[in-house]
């Protein structure tokens, strides 16, 4: 699971991107079902995202990182990232605000990852 640099950074970023897409999907579903009978909104909280990745980030032991990231990915695939929202009904303004926040987060990841890849390219290619 280690990428070409020997670190799990690429895997962490990919998992974060997937989580962001999932979060957008959940927001979209909440908004689409605002008026659906008996519908209870769900969420993919940033706290949950932090929990999922906490172990990978705090372990300095490289040999463990590969298995820890695999564990985080398994957690994501199991659907455990989606939790019921504290609200009984869809709060439209909250959902729309969340969409905007998530979008910024997604953009930050893409931009940051682009810079990271550019650094790798420079280091490997010697600026040629």
């Amino acid at each position: 699971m280690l990428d070409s640099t020997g670190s799990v950074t690429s895997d962490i970023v990919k998992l974060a991107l997937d989580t962001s897409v999932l979060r957008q999907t959940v927001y979209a579903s909440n908004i689409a079902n605002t008026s659906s009978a008996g519908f209870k909104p769900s969420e993919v909280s940033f706290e949950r995202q932090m929990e999922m990745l906490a172990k990978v980030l705090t372990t300095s032991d490289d040999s463990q990182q590969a298995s820890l990231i695999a564990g985080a990915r398994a957690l994501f695939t199991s659907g455990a990232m989606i939790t019921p929202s504290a609200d009984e009904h869809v709060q439209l303004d909250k959902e729309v605000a969340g969409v905007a926040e998530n979008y910024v987060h997604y953009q930050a990841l893409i931009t940051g990852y682009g810079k990271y890849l550019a650094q790798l390219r420079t280091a490997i290619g010697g600026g040629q």
Partner: protein
Amino acid sequence: MAINSIFGISASGMSVEMTRVDVATRNIANSHATRGVDGKSYVPLKVVSTAIAAQNFQSQLAAFANGEIPGAAKIQEIVELNVAPRMVHEPGHPDADAQGNVAYPNVDLLTEMLTLTEASRVYEANVQAFNAAKSMAMRTLDIGGHK
């Protein structure tokens, strides 16, 4: 994550709210219709929408089978409201009954206007979610960035 499920959910929401607007508009337009095609006065309608169950947004296999997207909204049914018509005493009216009363549809204009307002709000929110998803997808193509 399939592309059509990202956009399809918001599209379904827009579609449901459009239907809601259509029905509310029809109710308002027919609030004085005392004689319909079947000879009876108009009965106001209501849209009942429901969510397509999403066990786990990642597993799209089952629901996709019949073209339904997990997490999307759909119209369950459009029902006639169970309200009695408003009886107004108008002896000269062509549709007056033996007592001179005319059965007007019991369309509550306030409710219909509120439905219209709420449906537009939700429609707008769906559009914003759709735009965010589109921008995210376009931005994905930028991974690797500028040199």
